[in-house]
């Protein structure tokens, strides 16, 4: 299967008054088409920044300082001032008009909190109108309505509600509206940033199911960003674990849960309660992530790692291929 997205040596820095912090440090990531990649890690590990940089929406004071984000376009993407030819495109090289053409149309982003992500002052139908008009100024009212109804219907929202304001929906419905908006233009890539974190468990389960269905229906490729490994177990094909802006391990889901390679991944999994073994003692990872403004040399996990060796304190481990397909960045492993 071809790769829809290839991230090469991506580095994002945040320049603050106290100093510069690397939110994303030399990340390499490949995303196969029609697969779901889970991006997991603690708060502040860089997963959101990574997701946002694919859209080139890194918040101030962040800046992409190096690397490539290559996307495989299967068709030409026209926009008012020109057209992006199909093929491999480096997202970081595009100009403002071009990246805006891609946003919403080829790549969609779903935010964590649907209340604040929807404009409280305009109705839902206006939201659809805006996004469709932004990408196709000639589009007719009829068509907008039609498509919007279709999508919302597919998400279980009755058509009359399209004339309501965001605050008139419940949390779960709002998130569905967000998803609907995200999929309105049939994008190839959907990046969901903590899509269910603000929802209760039951709604969460429903939404995850619906997302899985939609993914099948629209042939989506998805990146699911969350700190909740349980969610990823359900929906992701592969999982990448991030820590201090670096990828620590990337494995197919089942393999990761059965046999985590990286000590950090192991520790994470141990800290998640297991329904089938309720008597299991919950463990936690001692210590805390380092301050990224003053990074520690070598592998930044080493102060908390039970297997830390001398080399871990001096050399950053490369992300190497192990067992034919799994990636891990740890000095405990030697590549194939």
């Amino acid at each position: 299967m071809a790769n829809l997205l290839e991230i090469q040596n991506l580095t994002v820095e945040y320049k603050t008054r106290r100093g510069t912090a690397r939110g994303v440090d030399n990340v390499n990531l490949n995303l196969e088409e029609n697969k779901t990649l889970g991006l997991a890690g603690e708060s502040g590990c860089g997963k959101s920044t990574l997701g946002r940089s694919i859209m080139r929406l890194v918040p101030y004071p962040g800046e992409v300082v190096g690397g490539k984000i290559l996307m495989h376009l299967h068709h030409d993407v026209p926009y008012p001032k020109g057209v992006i030819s199909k093929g491999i495109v480096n997202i970081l090289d595009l100009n403002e008009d071009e990246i805006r053409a891609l946003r919403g149309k080829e790549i969609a982003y779903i935010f964590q909190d649907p209340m604040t992500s929807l404009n409280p002052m305009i109705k839902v139908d206006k939201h659809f109108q805006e996004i469709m008009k932004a990408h196709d100024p000639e589009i007719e009212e009829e068509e907008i309505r039609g498509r919007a109804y279709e999508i919302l219907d597919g998400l279980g929202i009755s058509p009359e509600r399209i004339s309501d304001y965001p605050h008139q929906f419940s949390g779960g419905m709002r998130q569905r509206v967000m998803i609907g908006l995200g999929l309105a233009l049939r994008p190839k890539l959907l990046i969901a940033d903590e899509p269910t974190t603000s929802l209760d468990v039951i709604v969460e389960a429903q939404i995850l199911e619906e997302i899985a269905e939609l993914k099948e229906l629209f042939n989506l490729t998805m990146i699911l960003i969350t700190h909740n490994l349980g969610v990823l177990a359900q929906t992701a094909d592969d999982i990448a674990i991030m820590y201090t802006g670096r990828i620590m391990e990337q494995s197919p889901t089942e393999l990761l849960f059965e046999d985590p390679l990286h000590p950090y991944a192991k520790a994470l999994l141990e800290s998640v309660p297991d329904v089938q073994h309720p008597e299991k003692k919950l463990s936690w990872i001692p210590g805390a992530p380092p301050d990224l403004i003053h990074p520690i040399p070598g592998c930044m996990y080493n102060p908390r790692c039970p297997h830390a060796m001398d080399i871990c304190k001096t050399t950053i481990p490369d992300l190497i291929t192990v067992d034919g397909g799994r990636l891990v960045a740890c000095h405990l492993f030697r590549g194939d």
Partner: protein
Amino acid sequence: MSQQETAISGVFYYLIPRTGDWKERSRSFLIGLAVVVIGSLAIISAFIGLALRSNSGIGIYVIVYTILCAFVVLISDAYRKYRIQEKHMTPRTGWLFLSAIFIILGFVSVVVGLFWVPESEGSLSSALVLGGTVLGVVVILLYDGYPILEERGSAGYVAMAGLLIVFAMVYMTAVSWWVVPYDPRDLDVGPYISAPSVQFPLGTTSLGQDLLSRTIAGGGIMLQVAVLSVLVCFSVGVPLGLAASYRGGVADKATSLVMDSIFAFPGLVLAIAIAAMLGPGVVNMALAIAVVYIPSYFRVIRSQVLTVKELPYVEAAIVLGARDRDILFRYVLPNVLPSAVVVMSINFADAILTAAGLTFVGLGLPVSVPDWGWDLTFGSHQLIAGKWWVITYPGLMIVILALGFTLAGEGLNEILTPKLKE
């Protein structure tokens, strides 16, 4: 460098180049710094050059004397810090020590002034006292204040810049009479309204006065009026605000109504009305301006007090039986003062601009005293003939002075009441 050495060396610590840091500093910062340093040096050398040719003959000595005073202050401050580090002195005693130094210097300056040029009848003394004190304060500001302000980033620089500008102006005005090439009041020292030349670098006025001298010495009235009006404003507005809002009830509502009425009025118009009826004079102008700005203090203090009054720890104090007076002074006042200080610096700027406005409208002081406002007013008649220098330089001085206060206010505002976080 050890903590101790850092403490003692104050600002000088920051002047020592640390290679890592300097490379990181943005290019615009370095350019700005270069401009500031070169500019200040240029101004200072021009000033000293002037002093060498001064009308009074002793200009350069006056300046040297004030620098000596500043030096004494510097050494005393270093000594004070050293003693505090060594734990031989508490911070409070340290400040008393410093104040004592200032007072002693003041006395010495008075005596020196009286003996040096007896016929000056104290004006030399006041120049020396004021000049020495201002330079001393500048020294302390740089020495003690700079590290504190620098910590706060760009807002600190802005505040520092503003304060330095203000003090520089005050200093210039303080020593002006002894430094200027011609007596600012002398008429006919040169041809009427002549353009800037070598002999008269800023040109001459319509009465044949040297504009350079008038520009250097013209700030006195404005500064006096500003200081006086701010003093009155502060001493009336703050207690009024505290009392009214803390008491609450009818007194609060009534006073607020009165203050709102004044506040709603166009400031200058009210000042014009008062000044016109009171007549000319520094005190009258100051009073006119003060009345206009009292409501500003009142409102700010009041809103602060109302907020603080509701805070849990104030309630707790009341429950524990604290008296009103205690609460007011120990809880409310410290919270309210930072805002009051910010209002004060803006107040200064407004006072200067209003004073200039009043002079322009004809309600200023007698002509004989050199005053930027008057030069502007008289100069305005020369505009038609294209004589631009008569208004430009005095006007520029007013702008710089007002700017200094405004910058200080802006900077202090960011520092004391931080709002927008990155």
